């Protein structure tokens, strides 16, 4: 398996990357860890004229706290996130999800920015970032803009990323004390991508669930927040009955994927099971 040929540029800074990306008449793709892009290149599903390698831009690889946010540089690897004590302390589902991606070799190299820019409907980050209420920072030569995750993920392999833009940062708000989060994943046995991945965040205080956020990967052609489940649990006591009732609302009214490993009815059933499991972890 050999890719079609392309030009390769390594950028030393974001500015350099943006100027390389802005070359006219060359279809240029950003290369980070390469674990979404290189497989597509090898199969010649993607045939760019040039790649801009941003993996070594030091200013893009960090995980740090800034006020009420944890900031994750876009070339942080899944392993960086899996090992982050800061994230583990404040929003455990990120390290948890990172540890469930691919395999150790993939986690060593694959990056969060690359994964979300690719927006595979079965990838793990999109739903997790939706449930985290995260923001995505994009930069182009025209400047920088920040989008809510909700506004970044547009559909099947589709994001708000424009030509000439690079994902530079993921901003994760630190949840209020007493908030728990989890990511529960039912894997496709061959690829180990999510057939159903459920990210859930709940604050339980005074015996009541609040700030309930639930999002899914793998269920539909793009990640989505499941407000039916959220609304069904918000304001309720975290009892097994209430959790089950809320989970039973999962994936209502969405167009559910169907494939060799999970037809629509089974996938919907799994969404309910995984909503229940995730909510039980964070609220049960």
């Amino acid at each position, binding site marked *: 398996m050999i890719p079609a*040929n392309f030009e390769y540029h390594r950028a030393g800074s974001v500015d350099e990357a943006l100027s390389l990306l802005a070359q006219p008449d060359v279809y240029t793709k950003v290369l980070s860890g390469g674990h979404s892009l290189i497989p597509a290149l090898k199969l010649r599903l993607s045939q760019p004229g040039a790649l801009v390698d941003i993996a070594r831009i030091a200013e893009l690889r960090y995980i740090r706290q800034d006020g009420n946010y944890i900031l994750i540089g876009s070339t942080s690897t899944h392993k960086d996130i899996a090992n982050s004590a800061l994230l583990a302390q404040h929003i455990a589902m990120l390290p948890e999800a990172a540890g469930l991606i691919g395999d150790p070799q993939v986690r060593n190299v694959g990056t969060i920015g690359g994964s979300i820019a690719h927006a595979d409907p079965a990838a793990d980050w999109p739903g997790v970032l939706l449930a985290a209420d995260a923001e995505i920072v994009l930069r182009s030569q025209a400047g920088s803009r920040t989008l809510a995750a909700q506004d970044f993920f547009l559909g099947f392999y589709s994001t708000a990323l424009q030509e000439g833009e690079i994902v530079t940062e993921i901003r994760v708000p630190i949840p209020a004390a007493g908030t728990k989060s989890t990511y529960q994943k039912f894997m496709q046995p061959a690829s180990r991508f999510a057939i159903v991945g459920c990210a859930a965040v709940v604050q339980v205080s005074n015996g009541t669930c609040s700030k309930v956020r639930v999002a899914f990967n793998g269920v539909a052609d793009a990640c989505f927040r499941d407000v039916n489940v959220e609304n069904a649990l918000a304001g309720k006591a975290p009892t097994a009955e209430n959790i089950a009732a809320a989970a039973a609302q999962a994936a209502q009214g969405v167009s559910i994927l169907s494939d060799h490993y999970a037809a629509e009815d089974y996938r919907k059933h799994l969404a309910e099971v995984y909503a229940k499991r995730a909510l039980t972890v964070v609220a049960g």
Partner: protein
Amino acid sequence: MSVKISVSINGKKYTSEVEPRQLLVYHLREALGLTGSHVGCDTSSCGACTVLVDGQAVKSCTTLAAQVDGCNVITVEGLAKNGSLHPIQEGFKEEHGLQCGFCTPGMIMAAADLLQNNPDPSETEIRHALEGNFCRCTGYHNIVRSIQWAANKLKETNAAVL
């Protein structure tokens, strides 16, 4: 069109001109004759091509040679020192952790990554750490024991993995 790269491979510096599309595994195998890293799939699934780049296990079939410019690469050929097997290699021999040998280099490199991060892994941790590597011969049973053997040997001799 080609890119000039300078890479330390098994402690030796190589400077080469490569096509940007050249995958690291083919560069190692074709240009440098290091045929210990194998290609078993097209989808970054089998792990037979695993090498260490700056100490971390990566799949060299999903890495451009251009990406490792300036890096320190260790392949399976770089583990044995002065003619004696590395403890992980020894473990695979002692515990019959290989049969046809084709997945073995990748398994050994994945094990090196694991033991660097976790010198005393449980069976469950070992099995989890091998999720990026297929073996079709051993059923993994003896691979687990091989890595346990290596972990013990490294502990007993108070040796670093690399």
